[in-house]
């Protein structure tokens, strides 16, 4: 297990390097930078920004250096000093902005993942055991629907229902008085009070696919001879189910968690923008619109790192669950 872990962690390093390159280049290569943006804005306001001033600004921000030098300055700062560069539009170091936001993104993503497990595993098992029952059809139908409704549409519909039927405005992750407040017990409770709706919205698509995976895998297992053998030995139906076929069926489910986690982090961006959550999504969009490059790159980088770490954890979990994988690759 130890050597497998080390090997797997080493494998993650090239992925991290590639991710950092992509996050930087996606933002830096397209024409135009923050200074052109500022110049456009002042031009729109009827002002002219002298070329000399623009050049001076570029120099001050280091935007005139070759791309690879800029990349190196940025990534070495990130890795060695935890310094993500400077946010032009916030006039703050990016690290002051990014960490609280990233923390909430992680909280929301993990909450959605737990929601998926808690809801989808029992329903998936039920669907497989009671195949072709009314409940199975209902679960399958809802599953398809969950896959077909875009996240942001679900978010809009949920907000509309909450607003029109219950009279609550459910934007954001905090009540107004707690948005800027320091962490306290009340703030945590307030967060929990707001978290459930985005959690459900974000978890729907994942729930649908997990139900399908578990149902299909369990159906493959349920009619195998070992199940009949255990049943013939007089084992109770429920403990039999939990002890053998369900454990078997969970393996493909665990290896599928990467994709689900990627989808949660990825889809969370849009849900957060629509619902005005204090996570990374809305700031990323703002940063992209204003060409606040270090901010945008850092957000994309950290979201991708989050995903790489999630993949690593799920691989380790799978290796721990299933010795065959450990020995094959370790």
């Amino acid at each position: 297990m130890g050597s497998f872990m080390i090997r797997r962690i080493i494998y993650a390093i090239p992925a991290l390097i590639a991710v950092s390159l992509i996050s930087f280049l996606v933002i830096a290569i397209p024409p135009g930078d923050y200074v052109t943006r500022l110049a456009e804005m002042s031009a729109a306001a009827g002002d002219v920004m002298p070329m000399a001033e623009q050049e001076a600004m570029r120099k001050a921000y280091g935007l005139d250096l070759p791309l690879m030098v800029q990349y190196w300055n940025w990534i070495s700062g990130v890795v060695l000093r935890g310094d993500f560069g400077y946010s032009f539009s916030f006039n703050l170091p990016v690290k002051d902005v990014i960490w609280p936001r990233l923390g909430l993104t992680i909280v929301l993503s993990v909450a959605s993942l737990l929601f998926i497990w808690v809801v989808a595993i029992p329903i998936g098992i039920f669907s497989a055991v009671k195949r072709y029952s009314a409940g199975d059809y209902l679960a399958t139908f809802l599953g398809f629907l969950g896959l077909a409704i875009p996240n942001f549409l679900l978010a809009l519909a949920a907000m509309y229902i909450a607003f029109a039927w219950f009279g609550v405005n459910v934007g954001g992750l905090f009540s107004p008085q707690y948005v800027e407040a320091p962490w306290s017990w009340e703030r945590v409770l307030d967060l929990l009070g707001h978290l459930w709706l985005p959690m459900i919205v974000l978890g729907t698509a994942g729930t649908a696919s997990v139900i399908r995976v578990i149902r299909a895998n369990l159906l493959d297992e349920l009619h195998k001879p070992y199940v009949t053998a255990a049943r013939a030995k007089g084992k109770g139906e429920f403990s039999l189910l939990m002890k053998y076929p369900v454990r078997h069926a969970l393996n493909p489910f665990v290896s599928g968690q990467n994709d689900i986690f990627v989808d949660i982090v990825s889809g969370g961006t849009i849900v957060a923008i629509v619902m005005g959550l204090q996570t990374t999504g809305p700031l990323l969009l703002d940063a992209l619109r204003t060409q606040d490059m270090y901010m945008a790159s850092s957000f994309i980088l950290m979201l991708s790192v989050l995903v790489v770490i999630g993949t690593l954890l799920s691989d380790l979990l799978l290796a721990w669950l299933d010795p065959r994988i450990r020995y094959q690759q370790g």
Partner: protein
Amino acid sequence: MSTFDETTGQVAPAAKTHQRGRGFDGHWALVWQKFLRHRLGVAGGVVVILAYVVAAIPEFLAPVTLEAYNPAYSYAPPQTLHLGRDEGEGWQFRPHVNAYKSEIDYNSGRRTFVDDESQPVDLGLFVEGESYNLFGFIPTNRHLFGPVIEGQPFFLFGADRLGRDILSRTIYGTRISMTIGLIGVALSLVFGILIGGISGLFGGVTDNVIQRLIEFIQSVPAIPLWIGLAAAIPASVPPLQVYFLITIILSVLGWTSLARVVRGRFLAMRNEDFVKAARLDGCGPVRIIFRHMLPSFLSHIIATVSLAIPGMILAETALSYLGIGLRTPIVSWGVLLQEAQNVRTIASAPWLLLPGAAVVVAVLALNFLGDGLRDAADPYSD
């Protein structure tokens, strides 16, 4: 269906009850027969075909043109369709909707609309309306349905901020939303077949490198990257180019699942007897791939393609909704949903979300179709 054999303790497949019409059906006939047995798949296929018909002739199907607007009907709610009415001579079949009585509430500054039963708007088929060019070159002014008297208010899906008919705009949006998935997937398919084919054909180090690359791309959160790329399109780029750039952006990350399928099939088939036989007969690699291998996994590719389209449609809708995808005058379902930006607007005009229903129906239908095709792609199992 399978039965449990008590004596051997093994599960034996049930005897085939399905009788085929002819003794020796070809591959595609078998695929077709198996597909027809997947009812949801067939239903999905019908809806998908209808959607592409709508995409081909929205000008004819929509009651009014895309840009028709009337500020008097700003945020008019959807009308109810009545099938007939009683005008003193008993109930008669006369489909109609009722015109609006509108009042302006000066306190809130909002216009409220009430059904006006005294002013029915009669509806008809093949009515005359605004003129357009069918398929771009047949000038006509017939519309499939609409008010008999041109210009009367007819808003089955309600109206938006500028008093434009949401139903007509949703019908027009079908064209862009349904084709962007198709073009995006076609591009992905080119990448996928090329890269997956190379990977499967050469194997070894090449295969390993390409597989790691695919794993890496699949592990990158797509939406932040899509947002990043889409936001980089300058505002000065003409709308049609934006459309193509967006399809390219979508397929940059979208080709991986297709490449995986192609590679898997190549690897599985490389050592099949008929491929060996072809090789021994002196066929070159190109002929082996296109003449012998491709036909036997084409059905799998078609299935994967139809499962890849919904993802593209959903991604385009989301990007356009955020305002960094397509933009007017090009109208897709996502562009229409831009109108529903905040809760208060939606609360006062929930019908602005109706284009979203079109997205859900299209994605559901494509998923069902894809599921059916995937099951049918391998007609020899079961």
